[in-house]
């Protein structure tokens, strides 16, 4: 299994500012993912972050708004830029296990609860 920690756990930010969320994993993983969970909604994949390459963004998400860094196999950051109240969500980091053949379990961090005023 993988243990994932995120910082901060929650934050309240002003419109127009940026917040960087950190994700730390207790083991080396190839694939890391960032998800958004808007209030009362399900999880939506923002991007996939692989070490040594540019992140791959899903439709509706762009690098200028959600820049991602992946400097090594245990760490990643997601920045929410130029925030507006619509960015108020829980942001979750997730990793996929590297063992297990065709089935690789995916683990989730506790999330960062962001409120934008």
């Amino acid at each position, binding site marked *: 299994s993988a243990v*994932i920690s995120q910082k901060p756990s929650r934050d309240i930010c002003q419109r127009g500012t940026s917040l960087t969320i950190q994700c730390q994993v207790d083991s080396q993983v190839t694939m890391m993912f960032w998800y958004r969970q808007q209030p009362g*909604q399900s*999880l939506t*994949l923002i991007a*996939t972050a692989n070490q040594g390459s540019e992140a791959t963004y899903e439709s509706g998400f762009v690098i200028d708004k959600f820049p991602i860094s992946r400097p090594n196999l245990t760490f990643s950051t997601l920045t929410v830029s130029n925030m507006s109240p619509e960015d108020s969500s829980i942001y979750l980091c997730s990793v996929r296990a590297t063992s297990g053949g*065709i*089935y690789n*379990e995916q683990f989730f961090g506790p999330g960062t*609860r962001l409120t934008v005023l």
Partner: protein
Amino acid sequence: AQSVTQLDSHVSVSEGTPVLLRCNYSSSYSPSLFWYVQHPNKGLQLLLKYTSAATLVKGINGFEAEFKKSETSFHLTKPSAHMSDAAEYFCVVSDQGSGSARQLTFGSGTQLTVLP
């Protein structure tokens, strides 16, 4: 393309009675299916998974789910609800494409309330 539909946004049961959370899926490939639970202010926890082995899958905390290909369903059940089961439950599908391309698609979630 893959998708998952959770048929109930809210389910209420009394403590000690059975739980049924319904999920239907659509997938172009042989799917892997999962149920995750999310307790308030906590991360997602994997309850159980189906990956083309036995169609009846047993998970943690007494939960189980049955994969029915003919009905494209993967309903979650538990014989007797406990107060601690109150949480949000997500049904998740993943097609078995190449490992790097395989993504999880989440259902909209079912909020389970357990009444004393």
